[in-house]
């Protein structure tokens, strides 16, 4: 019994000594702040200034919660105050541009990304809120309008939103190239991103060349967890999301000839997203998880 204990202790010490000191590289998902602006004058006139403030804050919180249940590669939280710290996703509830004299207006949500870390996405997405013929309908009280906003956002086409707008948010600014097969390891676990395989990523790299490092971007398909059969020099990436380079891309053959450690992954974006299922639960104990937020108070936490 004593001999067995000693052997176990020796083995444990040996394992500890031989284990390389890889740094922990798991990243936090990008935090996207969400804000709803009630821009349509016909709607604004129906509410007092205080009601508008409350409604905007409450709607921002509910939209963030809804987005979180559908999209897992970012953390969505309502904008608190005026200070924008990261990417800001703005939902402007306003009329579609149909000329100033139009009597019946179509009202929709104009969604755009701005703020820090918003990437290069300058596109906007428009989601119909109420068609022209509903312009004569009552707006309702703030609670009714909130419910309607929730309903519209719940039914909306997220594919376009991700491709046109959220694809501007980098989910990582680091990563590791891999050659067999050619692809990249993204420092997030698949479950954390709530991302199903076959989601499409856009990887921006600094690739060495005769003219110095040049930027080259490639499409890659999420293929599963990085679990190579033997030990590797990048064991700290084990278990993270592996994305395989999509074939027939310009410059891909050149990349295959470059040593992976020479390639610097600059940013990883999501072009097409397939959800693993209902996301939204967030990381356990995550204070930003929607279930842990108090939406009753504008911008408030429990």
């Amino acid at each position, binding site marked *: 019994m004593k001999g067995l204990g000693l052997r176990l202790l020796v083995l444990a010490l040996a394992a500890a000594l031989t284990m390389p000191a890889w740094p922990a590289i798991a990243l936090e998902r990008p935090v996207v702040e969400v804000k709803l602006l009630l821009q349509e*004058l*016909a709607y*604004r*006139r*129906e*509410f*007092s*200034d*205080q*009601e508008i403030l409350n409604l905007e804050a409450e709607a921002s919180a509910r939209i963030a919660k809804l987005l979180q249940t559908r999209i897992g590669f970012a953390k969505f939280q309502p904008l608190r105050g005026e200070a924008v710290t990261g990417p800001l996703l703005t939902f402007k509830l306003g009329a579609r541009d*149909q*000329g100033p*004299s*139009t*009597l*019946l207006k179509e009202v929709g949500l104009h969604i755009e990304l701005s703020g820090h870390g918003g990437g290069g996405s300058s596109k906007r997405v428009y989601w119909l809120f109420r068609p*022209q*013929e509903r*312009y*004569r*309908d*009552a*707006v*309702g009280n703030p609670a009714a309008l909130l419910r309607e906003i929730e309903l519209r956002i719940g039914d909306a086409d997220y594919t376009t939103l991700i491709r046109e707008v959220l694809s501007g948010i980098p989910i990582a600014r680091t990563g590791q190239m891999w050659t067999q097969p050619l692809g990249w390891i993204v420092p997030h676990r698949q479950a954390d991103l709530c991302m199903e395989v076959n989601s499409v990523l856009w990887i921006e790299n600094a690739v060495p060349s005769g003219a110095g490092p040049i930027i080259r971007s490639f499409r890659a398909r999420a293929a599963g967890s990085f679990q190579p059969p033997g030990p590797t020099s990048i064991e700290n990436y084990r278990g993270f999301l592996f994305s395989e380079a999509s074939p027939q891309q310009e410059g891909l053959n050149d990349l295959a000839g470059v040593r992976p450690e020479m390639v610097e992954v600059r940013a990883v974006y999501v072009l097409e997203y397939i959800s693993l299922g209902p996301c939204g639960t967030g990381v356990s104990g995550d204070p930003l998880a929607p279930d842990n937020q108090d939406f009753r108070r504008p911008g408030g936490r429990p």
Partner: protein
Amino acid sequence: MMNPHLFARVVALILLLTGIFLWANHHLGIAPGNLGWLSVPTAILAGVAAWVDKLLEDPERQSILRTARDKLRAALSMQVLVVLFLLAFGLGLVYSSVMVIPDSNDPSASISITPADRLDRKHIETLDPKEGVRRFRVVTSPFGRPFRIELEGYAPETLDVYPFVGLKVRAGKELRRSPSLLLRLPPVAVASLKNGGKLVVIRRIGNDGETLATDTEPRSAFLVGRAHSIPPSSYGIWRMELQAAGSDERGIAQSIMGWSRPKVLRPLTTLEPGMMILAEVRSRANKRVASAEMSLGNDSLIDIGLEEVFETEGSP
């Protein structure tokens, strides 16, 4: 044989009674047809007199006639006749009437007749055109007295009432029809009414305002004043207006249908040409949604389209 003086006095009395009858006919509306009830007692009296005449002997009959003649002579003395004439003339100088002839197509409406020199003495009644001519007895003066006549649906007028002849007022002639105001609302204002907003029609008096009408029913159009048919030419103008605003055929049809069926609102004060009117739709948050301001002209129907208010404003 009747004394010639007595005969003259009886003639004078008959003339006086005729004058009183004519005055009563004109000012009180007592017409021969209205005196039919007198025929029965008159017939009974005549029958009784004829029967008594047959029962009496000549001396008795002569005695009764003499007594009656003496009594009549005593009663119809010159002084009595003069007093009666003076009394009738004096009353005729002071009491007169306003005869109002309503338009049979009008609904029941309130009418007020007020001495222009004593506006606190307002006399209000309800006028039903089915009743026909209506007379209002008034106190006037020998040289006439001005009265302000306000008939619902007509512009108020101040007219003189003279003794004996009185005043005859025909709706639509002496009294001009008051203008009706057709307020057409844009869709955004209708939506606001559906959401708890309200229409307010205000008469501007300098910097002050008098609320004439309010309504919260979500309608596309309101007709303030008397009911008035919409001229067919309006539909063409509205269509052009909507086309200019970029409405499609469906929107045009919806708007015209809504505007052609206005809700009639009775203003607290009859509309008059020259009045400055402000019409607004205010939201449930009391913010201005649509408005129009206008000075009323002489047209019987004034068609105004409220315009959306684009200015932002804070909560009151």
